């Protein structure tokens, strides 16, 4: 994702040559030939749906019956309208909730002036800045939305229900995915409103149908990079310090000696004969 100007900063990654980047990617994949299969099945399903599923029609009305009566021929003919009109999503759309709306690029052509060329045109969404309240997270969120988002929130009867009911492909924003994951994680953990147990039980009952197990909720809304980082963090177990290992061994040995009855130096070791407080020691002093 191209980062907006207010978050951009220079990284050493910029100055690495393309060849080195390719080499690094190839080495990575030689180590791990099937990187996607290692993730849990529910993450794979969600990820592929988000990637390949067709979003609900926003900028066009789909043709319900692909046939039409043609009066010139006097017959019913097929209409070819299988290609949806899809918008473009700029990086700024990932910092707001546009509800599936985006920038549509196309042309306009005047029918009354056939000698004129077609003109390129962008159709932009109308954006507004609003404060949304999430009941589950108990947080107010200042976001940039479209009117369509607000209508969808009202249709779903609440911001949390909008996030939970809407498919990830229809959210069309990294912010929306992250919020969805956070809401699901909060519901799965069940630690909402720690000071108010009555409200806690009320809201958990309200969202009971949308609650999923905690291990699944932990993976919701992650990008492939984030999923990889999470997987690596789970796989990596930090090694125990040698100090602790040796201490364990020593304690075990001492315990063995104690069981065998060798803990006291009763077998006449030469150290037992040493008496630093004897006559000779006093004379030296």
């Amino acid at each position, binding site marked *: 994702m191209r980062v907006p100007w207010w978050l951009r900063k220079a990284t050493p990654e910029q100055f690495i040559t393309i060849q080195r980047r390719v080499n690094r*990617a190839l080495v990575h994949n030689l180590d791990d030939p099937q990187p*996607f299969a290692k993730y849990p099945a529910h993450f794979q399903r969600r990820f592929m749906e988000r990637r390949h599923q067709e979003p609900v029609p926003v900028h066009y009305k789909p043709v319900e019956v692909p046939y039409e009566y043609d009066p010139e021929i006097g017959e019913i003919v097929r209409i070819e309208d299988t290609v949806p009109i899809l918008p473009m999503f700029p990086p700024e759309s990932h910092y707001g909730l546009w509800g599936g709306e985006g920038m*549509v690029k*196309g042309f306009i052509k005047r029918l009354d002036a056939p000698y004129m060329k077609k003109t390129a045109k962008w159709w932009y969404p109308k954006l507004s800045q609003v404060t949304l309240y999430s009941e589950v997270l108990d947080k107010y969120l200042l976001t940039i939305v479209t009117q*369509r988002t*607000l209508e*969808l929130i009202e249709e779903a009867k609440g911001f949390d229900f909008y996030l939970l009911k809407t498919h990830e492909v229809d959210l069309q924003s990294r912010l929306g995915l992250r919020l969805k994951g956070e809401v699901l994680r909060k519901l799965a953990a069940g630690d909402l409103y720690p000071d108010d147990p009555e409200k806690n039980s009320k809201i958990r009952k309200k969202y009971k149908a949308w609650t999923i197990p905690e291990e699944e909720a932990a993976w919701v809304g992650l990008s*492939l990079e984030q999923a990889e980082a999470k997987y690596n963090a789970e796989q990596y177990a930090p090694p125990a310090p040698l100090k602790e290992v040796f201490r364990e061994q020593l304690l075990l040995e001492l315990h063995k000696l104690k069981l065998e009855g060798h803990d006291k130096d009763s077998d006449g070791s030469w150290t037992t004969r040493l008496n630093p407080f004897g006559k000779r020691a006093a004379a030296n002093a």
Partner: protein
Amino acid sequence: MSREMSRKLSTHLLAWRHCALLMRTDLIQSLSERTFSLSSSQNTWILKRQYQLKLIDLEHRHPVRRQIQMSDQVYEVVECTHEKPTPPIQLLLLTDVPAYGKAGHLVTVPRNIARMFLLPEGKAEYVTPEGIAVFEAKKREEALHPELQSSSATSLSTVAHLSDILLLVPMNMHNPWKLERWHIRSALRLIGVWSPNDDVIELPQQEIRGPHLEMHGKSFSVFIRINGKERAHLLCQIDLRCKDPADALPVLDTFKPDQFEPLFPGAVSDENKPTTLKRRLPTDRPVVPRHQVVDF
């Protein structure tokens, strides 16, 4: 191509290949389940192709989405309703909101009011079956206690309006007078509020006599009873006037001031006193330094 994309390119390609089978079954299943957000929205650009696409052979077509030409991207606008007014929305009130209704009532309010004030402030809720049950219970409880009900549907909003305005009472600057109810009634008539008779107006206990020049612009409260039930606190200011412009006192502002002087101690009731709300400035927002901004 961005940095992350090029780094993970081959990873993604393998992911595609691996999940081709997985995708096909799940797509059909999920499409049949999806029922949400299929209704058309009123505030988006809805476009249509100006020229029909060429017919293709259904049997021998490519499985991937077909390529489209530039002429297929010539669009005409079907709907563009950015400026269309939004219809009102029905809500369940959780607290008493004077201009809109009482707690537990189903009210129909403008959508912008609901979006900007009632819902974020927690004063109202979307209508749900549980909410309707609460509404019915509230109705039944109110039927048992008629003294708790408001006298009419608009009485509460009238109270809110009267408590909000500032009434200038025009009085003579030279001739002696004593403030009476009909003065208030005619002053109300000047701003377009009609009171049925003088009995609904209740003056302060202490009688007000004039004229004194120091009275000009001093405030006091009167009480107005609506339908013999609700009691509104109305803030008034004495406005001394004369015919000769040479003697005229400064013109008073009809906007409610932040601070006002009472005519006598205790002349202004507590309901009319200005609220001590702190004005929020853009600088009050928490400033997150750039290195602490968390990206996702």
